[in-house]
C-alpha cells in the first residue's frame, strides 16, 4: 500500500511490516501504526514513520551502534505485552534527537522502542536502570564536531556559521 508522508512524499509500505505500537510513543500515545523506513542501507540512521500522522517521523538508530555494551532489562509486564517468546525476535530502536541552535544530537538510551519483530508489536519502554541517560550525546558540545556533522561546511568556510 502507498502512504503519503510529509518528509518522503508517497512511500510504498509492505502491510506485513506495519508495527503496532501498543502504548504509543510517550507523548504521542494516539499514534498506533508505524513503519521502519530505511532510506539508505549504508546509513545507521533510520526513520520510524507514523502512518496515522504523515508529519510525524522519528530518527532512530540501533542502540548497539552507539553503545556496544548496551544491555537493557525488559520487565515481565512488557515481555508479556509484547508477546515475546524468544529474545531473538527482539529488535531495539532508540530515538535520536537533533537540536538546532545550538546544534546537538543525542540518543535516548533510557527509553528504547522494543520491537517484537516476529509479531510486529512494539512499545517504548522506560528502563529502571538509571545508568542509561535520556540524553546520551553523540556530539560533544563546543568541540567543533558540529561543523563536520553539519555536512555542508567546506574547508575554509566559517564552520561556526555552517552549524545548524
Amino acid at each position, binding site marked *: 500500500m502507498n502512504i503519503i508522508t*510529509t*518528509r518522503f512524499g508517497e512511500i510504498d509500505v509492505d502491510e506485513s511490516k506495519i508495527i503496532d505500537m*501498543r*502504548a504509543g*510513543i*510517550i*507523548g*504521542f500515545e494516539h499514534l498506533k501504526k508505524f513503519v521502519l523506513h530505511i*532510506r539508505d542501507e*549504508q*546509513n*545507521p*540512521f533510520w526513520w520510524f514513520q507514523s502512518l496515522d500522522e504523515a*508529519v*510525524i*517521523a*522519528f*530518527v532512530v538508530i540501533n542502540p548497539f*551502534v*552507539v553503545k*556496544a555494551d548496551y544491555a537493557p532489562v525488559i520487565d515481565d*509486564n*512488557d515481555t*508479556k*505485552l509484547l508477546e515475546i517468546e524468544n529474545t531473538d525476535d527482539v529488535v531495539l530502536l532508540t*530515538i*535520536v*534527537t*537533533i*537540536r*538546532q541552535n545550538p546544534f546537538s*544530537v543525542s540518543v*535516548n538510551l*533510557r*527509553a528504547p522502542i522494543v520491537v517484537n519483530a516476529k509479531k510486529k508489536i512494539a512499545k*517504548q519502554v*522506560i528502563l529502571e536502570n538509571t545508568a542509561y541517560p*535520556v*540524553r546520551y550525546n*553523540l*556530539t560533544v558540545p563546543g568541540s567543533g*564536531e558540529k561543523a*563536520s*556533522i*553539519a*555536512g*555542508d561546511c567546506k574547508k575554509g568556510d566559517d564552520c561556526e556559521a555552517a552549524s*545548524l
Partner: protein
Amino acid sequence: MLILTRKLGESITIGDDIKITFLETKGKQVRIGIEAPPHIAVHREEIYQLIREQNIQAANVESIEKETLPNILDGLKHLLLRDQQKR
C-alpha cells in the same frame, strides 16, 4: 483531588484491575506496590515527563529542512564510524 488516609499494608483499588498497596515509610519516603494490567503504563512522574519532552523534541525533526537533514545524518554516520574505529 480525592484524599484518603491509609495504614501500612492497606490498599486502594482503582477500577477493576488496579491496586495500590502502601508498604513502608522511611522518613519522607513512601514505598508503594502497584498491581496493574500490562497495558497500563506505570511510571515515576519526573522520568515520564522527561521522556515525553525528549520525544516531542525528537519529533521536531520535521522542522529541519529536507535538504539539510541527509547531510546531518551522513555527517553523524562518519562520526559514529570514526568512534567505532577508535575503540
